[in-house]
């Protein structure tokens, strides 16, 4: 279309918008085509020509500024094979919440693959997905796209070139291999970061936590953020360091908490000290006790009673009050030393039954061997199978078929599947999802066969994660 035609088209268009005949405004060549007909037909012919001119000769005007995001980084692991993506999408669809979706992601990562970015992307605030996704988390965070994630070793000089997730991953790795260097970095560069970032950085200190960290953690007692001070205090408590010495008066939190605990004796020949939850008079008191358990440290509480952490745990009478037992377990997980945590875990697992379930609150602090032992205990007993879904920080894809056959789990599952109780079936669905996360590929495949034989529909949505697991060969 030449310039005359373009101008003509523009004036004809304006004429048609308001209404009227445009024949006199049309370019000469167009008039020739339209001429010789009645006025209505002339206008229709011109309309047809104009329509074609707009359709093929003009293109949309692109805005002057079009913003491009930086390319999505490639991850260190290969993409899940195309043929498995429908299974993955089914498993993601079945996963109800972010936690369940992150389990699907963890299973895939445990077999050496990452997800397709159009199937799943971590959020910019994500702190739970496998480390391999750090470049994507940072890509999500970097809206303006001016920075690039460096693949170099993190140093004080290139600190700003790293996005938060990549920095966190690098620091976590460094804490495992060279904790002092990482601590120095957190000390020198972390102080200038906002409180939220500072808190996340100091939380990384739990990797390779050791006595060398004490001076730095003590220096944080003057930090301007209350959350940072609290976290530093808990990390110090894990190292056996007492928090702020209380005055021992009724206003001292440790003394207040101790008052909610009854100290007694048991045994006829060898008198042993015991600690049990004191009987309280009101729900307000119970709430206050719960608050105190959340803020106080185990080492301070044990010291208040004049015993060691391990002695306190050994003397605690589990089973008297489940709610308080859970509070104790959480306090130990948050502020107990490594020795205290393992001591408590071993004691409770050895005891078995319901007390063993309290170890679930210690899971994030336990090594993978103890985690696996506990899960096997729960599976063998089957009385509290539902509690398995509470377990956090557990590795994916290790539970063997032998673990499932060694106990009452399978018969219980079969009975539940064959039955008609909807509530029980919902529990089965939840358990199958958990087992889909824990099982090896072989165990997943056998488990599918087993529950299908028991009457479950082969394509039941609750088998989605197990099906994905079964289709993924080992790493």
């Amino acid at each position, binding site marked *: 279309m030449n310039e005359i035609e373009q101008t003509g088209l523009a004036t004809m*268009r304006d004429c048609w918008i308001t209404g009227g005949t445009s024949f006199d405004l049309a370019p000469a060549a167009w008039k020739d085509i339209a001429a010789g007909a009645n006025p*209505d037909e002339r206008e229709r012919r011109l309309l047809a020509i104009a329509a074609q001119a707009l*359709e093929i000769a003009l*293109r949309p005007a692109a805005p002057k500024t*079009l*913003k*491009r995001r930086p390319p999505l980084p490639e991850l260190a692991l290969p*993409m899940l094979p195309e043929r498995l993506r429908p299974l993955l999408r089914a498993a993601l669809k079945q996963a109800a919440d972010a936690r369940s979706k992150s389990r699907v992601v963890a299973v895939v990562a445990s077999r050496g693959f990452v997800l397709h970015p159009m199937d799943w992307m971590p959020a910019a605030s994500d702190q739970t997905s496998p480390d391999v996704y750090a470049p994507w988390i940072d890509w999500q965070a970097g809206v303006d796209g001016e920075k690039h994630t460096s693949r170099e070793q993190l140093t004080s000089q290139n600190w700003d070139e790293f996005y938060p997730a990549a920095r966190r991953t690098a620091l976590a790795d460094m804490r495992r291999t060279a904790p002092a260097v990482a601590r120095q970095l957190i000390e020198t560069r972390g102080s200038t970061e906002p409180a939220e970032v500072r808190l996340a950085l100091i939380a990384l200190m739990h990797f390779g936590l050791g006595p060398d960290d004490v001076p730095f953690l003590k220096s944080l007692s003057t930090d301007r953020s209350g959350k940072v001070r609290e976290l530093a205090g808990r990390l110090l408590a894990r190292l056996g360091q007492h928090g702020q010495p209380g005055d021992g008066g009724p206003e001292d939190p440790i003394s207040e908490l101790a008052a909610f605990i009854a100290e007694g004796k048991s045994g006829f020949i060898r008198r042993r000290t015991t600690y049990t939850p004191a009987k309280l008079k009101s729900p307000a008191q119970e709430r206050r006790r719960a608050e105190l358990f959340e803020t106080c440290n185990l080492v301070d509480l044990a010291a208040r009673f004049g015993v060691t952490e391990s002695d306190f745990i050994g003397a605690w009478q589990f089973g008297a009050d489940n709610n308080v037992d859970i509070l104790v377990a959480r306090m130990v997980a948050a502020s107990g030393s490594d020795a205290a945590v393992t001591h408590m875990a071993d004691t409770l697992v050895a005891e078995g039954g319901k007390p063993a379930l309290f170890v679930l609150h210690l899971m994030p602090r336990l090594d993978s061997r103890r985690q696996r032992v506990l899960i096997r205990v729960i599976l063998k007993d089957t009385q509290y199978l539902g509690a398995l879904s509470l377990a956090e920080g557990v590795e994916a894809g290790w539970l063997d078929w032998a673990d499932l056959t060694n106990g009452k789990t399978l018969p219980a599952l079969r009975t539940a599947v064959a039955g008609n109780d909807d509530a029980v079936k919902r529990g089965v669905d939840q358990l199958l999802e958990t087992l889909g996360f824990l099982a090896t590929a072989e165990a997943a495949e056998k488990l599918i066969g087993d529950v299908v034989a028991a009457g479950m*529909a082969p394509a039941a949505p609750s088998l989605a994660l197990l099906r994905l697991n079964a289709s993924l060969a080992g790493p």
Partner: protein
Amino acid sequence: MKTIEALAPDQASLSAASKLTRQSNWPRLEKNEQLALIWGECQGSGSSPYRVVVDTGDHGYKCTCPSRKFPCKHTLALMWIAATAPASFTAAGSTPEWVNDWLGRRRKTTSQPAAPAPGVAGKSIGEASREEESTVVEDAAAIERREAAQRKRAEDTRSSVSAALDELDQWISDQLRLGLAGFVDNSSDRCRRIAARLVDMKATALAGRIDEIPSRLMGLRNEERPDAAIRELGKLVLLAKAWRSTPDDAELRRLVSTSESREQVLANPEAIQVESVWEVLGEKIETRRDGLVSHSTWLLDLNSAAPQFALLLDYFPASAGRRSNAFTSGDRFDARLVFYPARQPLRALVVERKGDVSSAQWPDFGFDVADPLAAHVAHQDTAPWLTDSPVMLPPGAILLDDRGDAWWQSADDPHGIALPIADAVSPTLLGLDLAATAALWSGSRLHLLAAQSGFGRLDLS
């Protein structure tokens, strides 16, 4: 399993079907591999079981249950069992009568070779020939009457459609006289009125198209609507003129009045047949103002050097719920397609599906970077009444403008042409380099279907 999921009208049907896959629900499960049929009886809540039959070749089905969902849970369950536990079916030499009934009803319009009448061989030659003669005489008369009636109907339709197009012409002239600003503001009422007249006068397809103009205009920004109205109305003028010059043209008749049936397309010697490997690019499901749902499935010919597309188009009442034609994005299969005769053959039917093919990258198409819409222009040259064209875009990326709207831009020509995208795009897509993108160009917007990227195939429809 993917096919079953795609066929299911909704998730509830799928869940209900999954509960019916137990063997105990099915007292009878049989198959006939030669006829590609499976059938069974499913014990429902009533006294007699529901009878279900499925043609595994083309996923046709029938169930005697009263469900208003198609396919029903019994049909899905039968397919499910066939996919997961084929050994559950007993091979049957003959098909039961109710299956035969369904087959008969289903295929009675296809051009089957006439089978000899049963019992003819047992009669004497004289009797047989007398009967045959009388049958032939009756048939000839009936055929003549039928053909005469057909000719009369065709003539009536043609003169009615011709009058409809005269009204359409006058209506277009009125819109120009009254002003397109008013047309854009009031397009819904104005289009509805002329569409109703066109339906009355047997220009049904054209009426459907005009009924959709308001929604096409509303999908654009205010300042773009007058130009879009010129394009829409100008194309109607062209289509009307083309029909008047050749009213018997199959393509024009399809666009103006009614479409030919599947059997007519299959029997048409001019219909092009292409056997190739096809990939399902994506689908577009739209509920139209006339209460029909149009379900478009776009296919790409993977054996062609230049991008060649096919469109499987299905209409069904919105009240029937969601339906699918058993394809899911990314599926690849070897099949023979027959195209509805047209200047730019696009709409097609699957004649024979031979089996699935594993997925891979698209072939390396030669791209015209100077004008990514060159294929669209070529289509418009031969069939200027077409509205949407499938296009294969060269390497590019998706960018955002200041308003947050998405644009596709060529990688080799970052300062050149950019095409606006109709729908919101996933933020992740903004970080991907697209090696090739399949899309529909509507004259003003791109509707993305699928793309190839460094991260593999992307479903975008």
